[in-house]
């Protein structure tokens, strides 16, 4: 099989592969969610300062991490599509946007629900919250831009450029709690001191990490599902899609 053939076969092969992988990803995600929720809600003790309210962390922190992780995948695959003209990369960027936007929304809402009892306010225009809100608007902007352009190739290119500019916001979100004096508490686990001593007890750390893993796998499950629809849509003029459409009628 030569390179040209491979290039044309990629969406078709990926469509099949995604169909096979999706149920496995879904099962593992559900299992991890169950374990994470059990340890987070039943096993982990109450926080000495925040009482039971800190349990919001088990959904808030994974959602916030995913909002940034998905954005990096979106921008990264957008760049790959832009440079090497790889259709699947363009599609991954497109399907990641609504998922990432939903995680960002969840991070903002759960943050608000945590902020009210702990800080006494639903919202503050501080650096962490504002940069996370900007991330939400970047996702919305990306989707609106792609929806406004009919030609998928041009839509992908424009979207990738916007996404790449928006990458600047990611370090701002991450370091905002260090650079500025914010209402938001500093990170309990930072990449730098992870191996040393994270400022969080293992009984709270493990459920958090399990939930984060569950959210990550959840993203891949939904991305695979959305990729299948996106591939059908963009490859609708090919013989193999016609076969699927005709065959399942």
């Amino acid at each position, binding site marked *: 099989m030569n390179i040209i053939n491979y290039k044309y076969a990629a969406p078709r092969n990926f469509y099949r592969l995604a169909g096979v992988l999706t149920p496995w990803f879904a099962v593992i995600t559900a299992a991890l969610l169950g374990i994470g929720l059990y340890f987070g*809600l*039943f096993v982990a003790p*109450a926080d000495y300062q925040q*009482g*039971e*309210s800190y*349990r*919001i962390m088990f*959904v*808030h922190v994974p*959602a916030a991490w995913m909002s940034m992780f998905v954005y990096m995948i979106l921008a990264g695959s957008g760049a790959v599509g832009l440079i090497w003209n790889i259709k699947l990369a363009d599609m991954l960027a497109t399907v990641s946007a*609504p*998922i990432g936007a*939903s*995680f960002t*929304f*969840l991070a903002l*809402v*759960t943050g608000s*629900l*945590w902020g*009210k*009892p702990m800080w006494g306010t639903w919202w503050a225009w501080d650096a962490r919250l504002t940069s996370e809100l900007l991330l939400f608007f970047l996702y919305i902007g990306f989707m609106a831009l792609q929806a406004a352009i009919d030609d998928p190739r041009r839509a992908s290119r424009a979207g990738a450029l916007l996404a790449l500019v928006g990458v600047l916001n990611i370090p701002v979100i991450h370091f905002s709690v260090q650079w500025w004096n914010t209402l938001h508490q500093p990170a309990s686990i930072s990449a730098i001191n992870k191996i040393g001593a994270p400022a969080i007890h293992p009984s709270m750390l493990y459920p958090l990490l399990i939930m984060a893993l569950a959210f990550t796998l*959840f993203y891949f*499950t*939904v991305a695979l*599902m*959305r990729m*299948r*629809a996106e591939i*059908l*849509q963009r490859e*609708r003029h090919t013989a193999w*899609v*016609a076969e*699927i*459409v*005709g065959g*399942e*009628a």
Partner: protein
Amino acid sequence: MNWSEFFAMGGYGLYVWGSYGCAALVLVGNVVSAHYKHKTTLKMLRDYSRLDEAGTK
């Protein structure tokens, strides 16, 4: 374990369960919309191919 105590979450029940409820909605919404997208795309393509066939006959 005392369930009413569990649901009260030390007085933070509204905030904690509100957060978990929102998380559940976002997760379920993602799955439903991804599934629906695949279904509607297939249906749309099927309708188009029928129209094509009708046009060529």
